[in-house]
């Protein structure tokens, strides 16, 4: 009876994603964008979860992999004729190369993974606060380089003219792929070993688990997923370096923490719940009809509400809405 229960742990988050996508097909075209955006956020948060959830080590740097993925997919898929206008200083070999939608996403994932490997080789030796600050340093460096190094992208400008291929379909496929990879990883022996180091690092190393290697493995897997999510993101809306920086780091960490950082179910629930709230507030900032009256919030309310929510969840329920557990089918049965 155990195998079906495990499959439910994969099926439940997938079902949630599919439900969100189906709901997205029912609403108006202008609201559909919010649903696509939340599905991309699901991919980012699942990528974060693969490392943070399984290892218990905080990372403030994952948005750098998202950013590099976005840059890779963006630069390679802007039509060749428009490249000189948007990116006048682009390096020669990038100017001539244009790839299709799917290859650009795969290359984005590859770029995220390679950066995570390079960074992780050094950073995974650290732990605790030093690790947190160092990952922050990686974010600062990536942001700084992408912002000013115009040979590899638009620099300060916004990435326009990237084909907008990320609709409900592509976003939900991306999220499902991310969930599938995360599930496969956490069921694998590597995922189990990493979780053992999270629970008790000295005991884990005593039975011969290399904390460094297991963390590095998870870091690379989550870098690949974050790169892929970045690729999906740049195909959704025009971005610049500021949209891939502290605000995104904050909102995605908030989603993971609110949902419950130590389960895949928590990551998906958190991403969708916070996205739903965030999108509703974004609507309300433009005025929305509700219960007969009109709710019109001042611009900037969104981050305040999300910030309060995140602080409240941390204080009242530090393990998140789901309590950091997987989909609770087994417990129901026992009752």
């Amino acid at each position, binding site marked *: 009876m155990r195998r079906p229960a495990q499959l439910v742990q994969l099926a439940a988050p997938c079902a949630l994603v599919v439900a969100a996508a189906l709901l997205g097909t029912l609403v108006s075209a202008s609201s559909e964008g919010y649903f696509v955006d939340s599905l991309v956020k699901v991919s980012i948060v699942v990528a974060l979860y693969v490392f943070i959830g399984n290892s218990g080590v905080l990372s403030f740097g994952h948005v750098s992999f998202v950013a590099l993925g976005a840059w890779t997919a963006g630069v390679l898929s802007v039509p060749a004729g428009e490249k000189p206008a948007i990116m006048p200083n682009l390096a020669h070999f990038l100017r001539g190369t244009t790839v299709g939608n799917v290859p650009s996403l795969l290359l984005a994932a590859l770029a995220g993974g390679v950066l995570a490997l390079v960074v992780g080789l050094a950073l995974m030796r650290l732990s605790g606060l030093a690790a947190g*600050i160092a990952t922050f340093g990686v974010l600062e*460096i990536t942001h700084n380089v992408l912002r000013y190094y115009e040979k590899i992208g638009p620099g300060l400008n916004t990435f326009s003219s990237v084909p907008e291929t990320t609709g409900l379909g592509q976003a939900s496929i991306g999220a499902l792929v991310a969930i599938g990879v995360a599930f496969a990883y956490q069921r694998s022996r590597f995922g189990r070993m990493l979780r053992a180091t999270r629970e008790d690092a000295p005991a884990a190393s005593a039975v011969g688990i290399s904390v460094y290697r297991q963390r590095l493995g998870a870091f690379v897997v989550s870098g690949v997923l974050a790169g892929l999510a970045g690729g999906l993101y740049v195909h959704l809306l025009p971005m610049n370096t500021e949209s891939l920086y502290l605000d995104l780091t904050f909102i995605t960490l*908030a989603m993971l923490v609110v949902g419950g950082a130590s389960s895949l179910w928590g990551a998906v629930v958190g991403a969708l719940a916070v996205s739903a709230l965030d999108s509703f507030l974004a609507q309300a900032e433009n005025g929305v009809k509700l219960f007969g009256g009109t709710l019109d919030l001042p611009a900037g309310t969104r981050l305040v509400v999300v910030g309060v929510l*995140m602080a409240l969840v941390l204080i009242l329920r*530090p393990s998140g809405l789901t309590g950091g557990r997987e989909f609770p089918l087994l417990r129901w049965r026992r009752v």
Partner: protein
Amino acid sequence: MILGVLTVDWQTLADALALGAVYALMAVGIGLVFGVLRLVNFAYGQLVMAGAYALAFASQWNWPGWAGILLCFAVVLALSVVMDRLVFRPLRTQSPAVMLVATFAVAFLLQSIALLWFGPLGKIASSLAPLNRPVVISGVDIRKIAIVAVVVAVVCLVALQSLLTRTTVGLQMRAAAMDFRTARMLGVRANRVIGGAVLISGALAAVVAIMLTVQTPLVTPDFALRDTIVVLAGVVLGGLNKPVPATLGGFAIGFASGLLGGALPTTQSQYLPTILFAAVILVLLVRPNGLFTRGHESLERV
């Protein structure tokens, strides 16, 4: 003066010293709270930001300079106490990771509140602007604020050091920083020590707000955000566990960033964060416990 490959003039050197001094004060503020609470306060920059807005409003209402400074202290101290009561206290028993994320959330919350109330354009704090004018010392122009910042920082650090070594509260604070549980068993009152650390750290944030608004009078919601990130890196670089290494780390990173920012040509100085954080990561790899601490990483023995 030639310093390696960089050409550094006295003006740059003075500004770098001043930045180092201000960052050293922020580092102490962060380090003190970390000492007693084991909590890295990401929201420290937002305390500075609140103080800066107080100064900006005071100068908008044409209050005299001293009244603005008083208002700044009142706002920052009140906010630190509220932050301690509402956020730090309920989280005291949580893991460091949870506390770090929580202060990250508080930082963003305060910043978005500022954005909501005061708008994105920013306000000018101008009542202390005369301090920004240069004085000529033996043929070299040096901004008055550079001198004031260094002097104020030295005075604050000396006062703090004597508070920590000469008074009962200071002794208790150091004991709590070393081993909180044992200190409590020996009769140190936790809330008093934590309250003291939070207040001192808040007062330092107010001082930093005054220094920073003189140098950059435009106060925006993300005021001091970048400074906090750099200082945090500096504090970890120096060594979080003790006040002196933390201060040195903060000073070092402020001095280095002031020096490089002033000496590099623009085409390179835009990559200043990259250089700075790459250096921080390199140092952390070699000395994960901090640059200015002694001894090796203590692995847990089972």
